[in-house]
């Protein structure tokens, strides 16, 4: 990628660019969500006709379900659910309809709908705005689930989701919205769903990261390197389907794995990744699998209570050092 083909921009701007390109590039693409018209007035959707930009009433279940009906009849809706906790209000049509209609009808439909859900944790918004709900949706066959961790992946995975003929949920890490990175400007740039990315090569310990934990994992790897410990850092990027080859591949390189996942401990993404490592890679494991995750408590409001709950570089490095001891 040459310098002229990329532009430095925030994660949020990368998401916006993906939406704009897909709306302008395909007249079947529409966007539905709350307060959408505000962004339209700001030019966020380019020359897209008003009929394809739907500022919806606060009716998450209704418009998430309408998007399914629109998808099976020829549109390609992007549904912006904003705060990830609101996906619970929309869960019925996502789970009972979007994920299953193709299967239940013997293949009579494609369901090309994309749901965006932004995880606003670690911002003193308390337990009804701070969830990382992707593990629940990893348990729903028929869906695809992605969690971009960089501006480049935000653009590439959202575009892949919109172009995919199956329902995809894009869980955004809201902590990353303002973070900048180089983003390809090619309108055909997409990041394939189901492929992890190695961000740092190492042979001593693997750090398998989920969502915005990537930046903490890379910081921990820097810290470990100062002690001569070389970490292999991969970002899964897609959680359904999981990239088993990448998970087992990094294990083969190191024999020691720390999984970093901002979801809660019980049945989080890390639990499934650990199961893959143990079921399919047991003979390669030199030490037990470590998980750095969020404890099983609702997220509290007060910052001194909230901040220590999430994975951070110190916890990740400490876990890796334990495995090296």
């Amino acid at each position, binding site marked *: 990628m040459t310098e002229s083909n990329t532009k430095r921009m925030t994660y949020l701007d990368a998401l916006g660019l993906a939406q704009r390109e897909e709306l302008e590039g395909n007249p*079947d693409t*529409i966007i539905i969500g709350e307060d959408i018209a505000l962004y339209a007035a700001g030019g966020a959707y380019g020359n897209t006709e008003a*009929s*394809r930009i*739907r500022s*919806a*009433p606060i*009716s998450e*279940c*209704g*418009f*998430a*379900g*309408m*998007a*399914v*009906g*629109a*998808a*099976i*009849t*020829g*549109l390609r*809706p992007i549904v912006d659910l904003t705060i990830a906790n609101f996906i619970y209000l929309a869960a*019925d*049509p996502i789970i*009972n*309809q979007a994920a299953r*209609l*193709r*299967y*239940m*009808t*013997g*293949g*009579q*439909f*494609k*369901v*090309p709908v994309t749901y965006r859900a932004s995880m606003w944790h670690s911002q003193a918004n308390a337990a009804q705005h701070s969830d990382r709900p992707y593990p629940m949706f990893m348990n729903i*066959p*028929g869906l*695809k689930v992605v969690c971009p961790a960089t501006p480049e992946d935000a653009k590439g995975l959202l575009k892949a989701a919109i172009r*995919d*003929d*199956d329902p995809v949920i894009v869980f955004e890490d809201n902590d990353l919205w303002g973070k900048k990175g180089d983003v390809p400007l090619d309108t055909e740039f997409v990041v394939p*769903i*189901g492929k992890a990315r190695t961000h740092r090569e190492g042979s001593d310990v693997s750090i398998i990261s989920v969502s915005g934990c990537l930046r903490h994992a890379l910081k921990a790897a820097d810290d470990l390197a100062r002690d001569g410990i070389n970490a292999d850092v991969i970002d899964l990027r897609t959680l359904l*389907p999981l990239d*088993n080859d990448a998970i087992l591949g990094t294990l083969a390189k190191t024999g020691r794995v720390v999984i970093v996942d901002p979801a809660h401990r019980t049945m989080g993404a890390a639990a499934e990744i650990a199961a893959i490592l143990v079921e399919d890679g047991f003979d390669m494991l030199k030490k037990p699998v470590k998980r750095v995750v969020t404890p099983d408590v609702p997220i509290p409001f007060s910052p001194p209570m909230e901040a220590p709950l999430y994975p951070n570089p110190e916890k990740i490095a400490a876990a890796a050092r334990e495995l090296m001891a």
Partner: protein
Amino acid sequence: MKNDIQSEAYLRMLKIRGFEQAVKQLVTEGEVPGAVHSSVGQEAAIVGACMALADDDYISGTHRSHGHPIGKGAQLKPLMAEILGKVTGVCKGRGGSMHFTDTSVGSIGESAIVGGGIPIATGAALTAQVKGTGQVALTFFGDGASNEGVLAECLNMAAVWKLPVIFFCENNGYAAVTPAKDSHGQPDVARRAEGYGVPGVIVDGQDFDAVYAATQTAVARARAGEGPTLIEAKTYRFDEHCVGLFINGAYRPAEEIAHFMSERDPVTLYRNLLLDGDKSEGDLSEIEAMADGLIQEAVSFAKESAYPDPEEAFELVHANPISIRR
């Protein structure tokens, strides 16, 4: 058979009635896996609504799933095969009785989630509006589903966006075994429409002509870009909520059931109406024989069809396939 609206309407009502009677017989023979819900008694409401639609208009529906695609003109053989879980079924044995879908006639999904079909049809109407196809969508739902929040949400959004959708309530008076009077603040679902700026119309659901006329008006309004209509057809379910369901304790008075079956049978009422008009006994017998033949063919086809290979369970999960973990 004469190719006119009345003959076609009578044929479709007979197809639904005959299909349901055949399914009940198959249940007693032990041929039917899973739950079955019969539309007997509601044929005029279903066919009156469907006949007012064009072939490429959309319908969505409910767990009481059989009548709607038949009313829209679906072939009976793949529907009956689906009831038996056969590979030749309209959904290849993945949906069953509660989830008929036949896109060849615009049937985009019956849903066993009560109210689940409502946003589906509203979304299909959104597609029609965005693409400018001129199609309309009609969603069948029951009096029970009228208490689901998605009806309120979709009525409102359809009104705001003037979507070409018809909300069609088959009010048979009972949500499973709970009387509507015990779960509705006032008896008329149609009156809720006013709260959203939508026309609400009540029709006699046992009267084909009344339902057909009301739906035609709603379709014209939708196609003209004037937005949705809520139609409430007052109807009655002759069979139990679920075929073979045994409820200890009567929730419907025996006299009420007897009254509807003897005085308010939509098929009999329509037959008499046609005889009072320009149809002869011979005309109607011909249609009845045709319906019987189609039902028998469908039953034979279903019984003779093969079951799916168990490995087919792993197919058709995605349109852009991923590796399925077993």
